[in-house]
């Protein structure tokens, strides 16, 4: 009966459809773009607060276990360690010498899978010695090494950020033992400039690096 009836009333069905079709394209009243109802917002806020309190209460219990280090927290630590390992090297401070700068940049860009730039720090008295590839947390990282006429060395540690993990940060300073580190993260990489120099000197160089990389 149904197919037959459908045919019988096909005209009626079409008339209904046509008659109300214009409603489909009417602008939707603003009031219909609801936010969640107010009480849901309150409920959410309450949940957030409760979780916050729970975490706050739990923290003293958790204290013996070290908090997991996020890549962001690890960045200055790893950079400072890499600096400590390689900057005292007399004979092999770098893997690829600055004389082969083009090759160095191409090679490291390829291995890190991001286009790298090598900052020029001559105006602050530091010349590029070269660079090397290092094992990072979950993939290769690059280290560029600079030296001033007095033999003082700075290293720039570059680690690509994984998608979704990048949290942009402004300049930050950390001190790991004798090593001072300025570090920041942009949309592609985390950078850390390390050196056993005073904070002011390092800050000047770091801002030069930052300017050149972000330009």
């Amino acid at each position, binding site marked *: *009966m*149904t197919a037959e*009836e459908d045919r*019988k*009333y096909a005209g*009626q*069905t079409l*008339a*209904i*459809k046509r*008659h*109300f*079709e214009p*409603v*489909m*394209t*009417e602008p*939707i*009243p603003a*009031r*219909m*773009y*609801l*936010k*969640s*109802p107010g009480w*849901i917002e309150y409920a959410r806020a309450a949940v957030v607060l409760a979780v916050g309190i729970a975490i706050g209460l739990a923290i003293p219990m958790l204290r013996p276990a070290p908090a997991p280090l996020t890549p962001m927290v690890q960045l200055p630590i790893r950079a400072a360690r890499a600096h400590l390992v390689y900057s005292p090297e007399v004979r092999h401070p770098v893997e690829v010498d600055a004389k082969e700068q083009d090759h160095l940049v191409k090679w490291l860009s390829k291995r890190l899978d991001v286009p790298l730039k090598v900052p020029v720090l001559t105006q602050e008295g530091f010349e590029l010695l070269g660079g090397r590839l290092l094992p990072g947390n979950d993939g290769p990282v690059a280290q560029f090494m600079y030296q001033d006429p007095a033999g003082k060395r700075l290293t720039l540690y570059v680690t690509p950020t994984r998608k979704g993990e990048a949290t942009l940060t402004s300049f930050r300073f950390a001190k790991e033992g004798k090593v001072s580190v300025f570090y920041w993260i942009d949309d592609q990489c985390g950078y850390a400039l390390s050196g056993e120099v005073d904070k002011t000197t390092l800050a000047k160089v770091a801002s030069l690096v930052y300017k050149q990389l972000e330009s």
Partner: protein
Amino acid sequence: MDYELIVPYIPNLRRYARALVGDRDGADDLVQDTLERAVRKFHLWRPGDLRAWLFSIMHNVFVNQLKGRKISPSVEIDEEMIPAHMPTVNSVDVLDLERALVRLAPEQREVVLLIALEDMSYADVSRALGIPIGTVMSRLSRGRERLRRLMEGEPPRELRVVQ
């Protein structure tokens, strides 16, 4: 919030509500109440046919609105029961679509409209309205026939003047 999932269905809900309620403001109120209820109950939705779920919510809201107006939707309203709605029995009145729809029993109107506007299957309508498929079919059949008569001006056969 999952409101973004619901937004694409707003035009469909509005179209159906307009046809079901008749007037624009009343229809948008129905949509609004439906949306608010859907957001409140969203945690009850199990991934599946979101459209059918939304229309079932609209059905519930609609039924509640009818109850609020003291019209029991569970009673199938036959032509004989609402003679007052028929203007004059002797003059054959040709109604336009909107006025004719309003004169359908709400239960019949819902089924006719869901099938005409949303191309729903009987099973979809059965789920959206919470009624057996057999009921969907009989309401559709009666609704279409009554709508046809209202629009073609053919007086219902058993209609009698109630003095």
